[in-house]
């Protein structure tokens, strides 16, 4: 397993190594310092003891001024190679005896100096009083070099250094071994996480290598992965079923639409051909009824003539009905020709066209400010004709009749209304108003085929608009055509559907 730079493994090893090395260095330094101090102390103690013994032994030599004995006593220092020089001074501070015996007197200091011990450059000097029963007899001056101390310190430092090197090496091995217990599981976990992140494979599980906090972490991670895996699977399943459902629905809608279109076309073709084919025999019926009236009219009694007239009227009425049906059918199928249409001019034209129906009628027209719209002129004219003729028709009993035409501009549509004070209708039946063959009044009361408003609705719908009506029986009605302001686009869309 290769460890990237700055990995936990490296950090752990570094931390442990730094700690152990610092400890070893500090311990070593403390040991060396302690040893230096203690060996200096012990050297001082040893030398002081030596000086004390020598001083105690020298009392009589000083008391009885026996320099030979004094020299002999001092020569005992030969056994100690570190003793460099020793000197005995008498009570007056005069040099009495010197060691080594052959050393020049100038080697010893002129006066012994202050009693005690002191370290001079690479030497330890002990100055010890020579006393018998508390009586000062002289002074001993003892000088020892620190060679032993230096050698000892070097050896000790070397040992400490070797021990430190060994400890650091052992610490390194231990650190490498111990870190695997921490860095190993972390790495396993990290690998698992990376695998999950890269492959979106939630079936991966981190290996749980220990039952410590890292083990807990790994278990928690695995638990989380399990949860994610479950949710992922559920999500995928529901997504798939949703997509399936969607495509099923789409297919079904398409199939239905196709079926509908087919049956619609069939129905329209059927009704067109039926209407068309019905006209020929109807023309015969009307024509022959007319011929019969002209040929045998004078010879027939009133009753027969009335019967013939009824036949002729009915045939004519049926012809109108068939024309209307054909027109309705055409409105559904014909191509739309979009153009700018002036509603003001169109209303004027339609009123012109209805002049025959207006004779003998007293009608008050209230025509508002009418704008231009975009749409199929022929279709819009047909719709407008329908609405105006309805208004004229249902106000037949009013004098004066009042018909108002206006436009209400709203957010995204232009609403054209035609209001009258005619027969009106029951709002409960407003849904039926725009249906084919739906009539709220009897043919005896108000003539009509029941196709007009259905045609209006079809035309407006093909323009992407909507129609509705408001009214009250005996008080009049209002019809509304709402055309979208961006009419053309929606109209196209409507046509395509």
């Amino acid at each position, binding site marked *: 397993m290769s460890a990237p730079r700055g990995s936990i493994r490296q950090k752990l090893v570094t931390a442990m190594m730094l700690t152990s090395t610092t400890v070893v260095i500090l311990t070593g330094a403390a040991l060396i310092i302690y040893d230096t101090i203690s060996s200096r102390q012990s050297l001082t103690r040893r030398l002081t003891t030596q000086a004390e013994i020598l001083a105690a032994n020298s009392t009589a*030599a000083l*008391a*009885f*001024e026996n320099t030979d*004995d004094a020299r002999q006593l001092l020569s005992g220092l030969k056994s100690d190679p570190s003793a460099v020089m020793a000197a005995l001074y008498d009570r007056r501070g005069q040099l009495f005896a010197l060691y080594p015996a052959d050393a020049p007197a100038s080697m010893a200091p002129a006066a012994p100096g202050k009693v005690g011990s002191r370290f001079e450059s690479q030497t330890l000097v002990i100055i010890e009083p020579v006393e*018998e029963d508390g009586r000062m007899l002289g002074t001993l001056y003892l000088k020892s070099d620190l060679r032993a101390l230096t050698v000892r310190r070097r050896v000790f430092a070397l040992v400490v250094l070797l021990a430190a090197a060994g400890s650091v090496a052992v610490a390194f091995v231990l650190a490498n071994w111990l870190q695997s217990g921490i860095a190993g599981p972390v790495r396993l976990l990290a690998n698992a996480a990376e695998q999950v992140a890269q492959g979106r494979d939630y079936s991966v599980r981190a290996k749980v290598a220990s039952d410590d906090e890292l083990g807990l972490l790994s278990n928690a991670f695995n638990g989380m992965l399990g949860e994610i895996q479950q949710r992922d699977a559920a999500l995928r399943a529901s997504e798939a079923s949703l997509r399936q459902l969607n495509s099923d629905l789409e297919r079904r809608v398409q199939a239905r639409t196709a079926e509908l279109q087919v049956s619609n076309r069939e129905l329209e073709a059927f009704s067109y051909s039926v209407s068309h084919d019905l006209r020929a025999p109807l023309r015969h019926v009307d024509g022959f009824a007319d011929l019969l009236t002209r040929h045998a009219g004078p010879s027939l009694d009133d009753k027969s003539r009335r019967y013939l007239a009824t036949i002729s009227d009915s045939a004519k009425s049926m012809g109108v009905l068939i024309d209307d049906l054909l027109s309705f059918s055409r409105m559904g199928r014909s191509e739309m020709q979009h153009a700018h249409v002036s509603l003001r001019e169109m209303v004027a034209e339609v009123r012109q066209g209805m002049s025959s129906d207006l004779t003998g009628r007293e009608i008050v027209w209230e025509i508002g400010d009418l704008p231009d719209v975009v749409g199929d002129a022929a279709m819009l004219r047909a719709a407008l004709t329908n609405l105006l003729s309805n208004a004229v028709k249902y106000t037949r009993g009013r004098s004066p009749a009042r018909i108002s035409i206006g436009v209400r501009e709203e957010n995204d549509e232009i609403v054209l209304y035609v209001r009258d004070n005619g027969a009106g209708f029951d709002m409960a039946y407003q849904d039926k108003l725009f249906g084919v063959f739906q009539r709220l009044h009897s043919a005896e009361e108000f003539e009509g085929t029941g196709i007009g408003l259905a045609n209006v609705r079809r035309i407006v719908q093909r323009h992407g608009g909507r129609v509705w009506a408001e009214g009250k029986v005996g008080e009049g009605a209002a019809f509304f055509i709402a055309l979208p302001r961006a009419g053309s686009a929606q109209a196209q869309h409507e046509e395509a559907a």
Partner: protein
Amino acid sequence: MPLLMRRLAMVLAATTLSFTPAIAATSAPAVTQEYDLKAAFLFNFAQFVEWPAQAFASPTAPIVIGVLGEDPFGSGLDEIVEGETVHEHPLVIRRYHSIAQIDSCQILFISLSESARLDQVLKALGHRSVLTVGEARDFTDRSGMIGFDLVQRRVRLRINLVAATDAGLTISSKLLRQAQIVRTSRGSN
């Protein structure tokens, strides 16, 4: 006193501690120096010799340094001892002219003037714990305990250890180191 002799002695004394008893008798400064040294030794003996407890009337009884016969020290001995104590014993100097005068005495310097009567003196002392010190050449041979000697112009000591031991005295080994030990058969006196 011949002038020549005196001059010679002065020269000698000025250079080293070189003298002989003959010269000492005639050369005052050198002799004084020698006896100052001997007086110091007498005082030092008090530190290196142990007396039995019964040698003192009390723990603070004085150590008496007696001088029997002609006193060669002059005031030197008194000056050395002045105000000194050893083991709580103050030091006292007494001068005796006859053996009969000696009562409580720890160190007895027997002057050369008593040489002729030395045996009687020592006999009279018997086994009393008195450290006898003398100058005669045969002092220790005649059962004196410590004898002063001049060897190579230095004062040297001779010790008759048997005599001292017989008197119940303990001489410190350090003192013994400084001295020549003289062996004499017991009971020769």
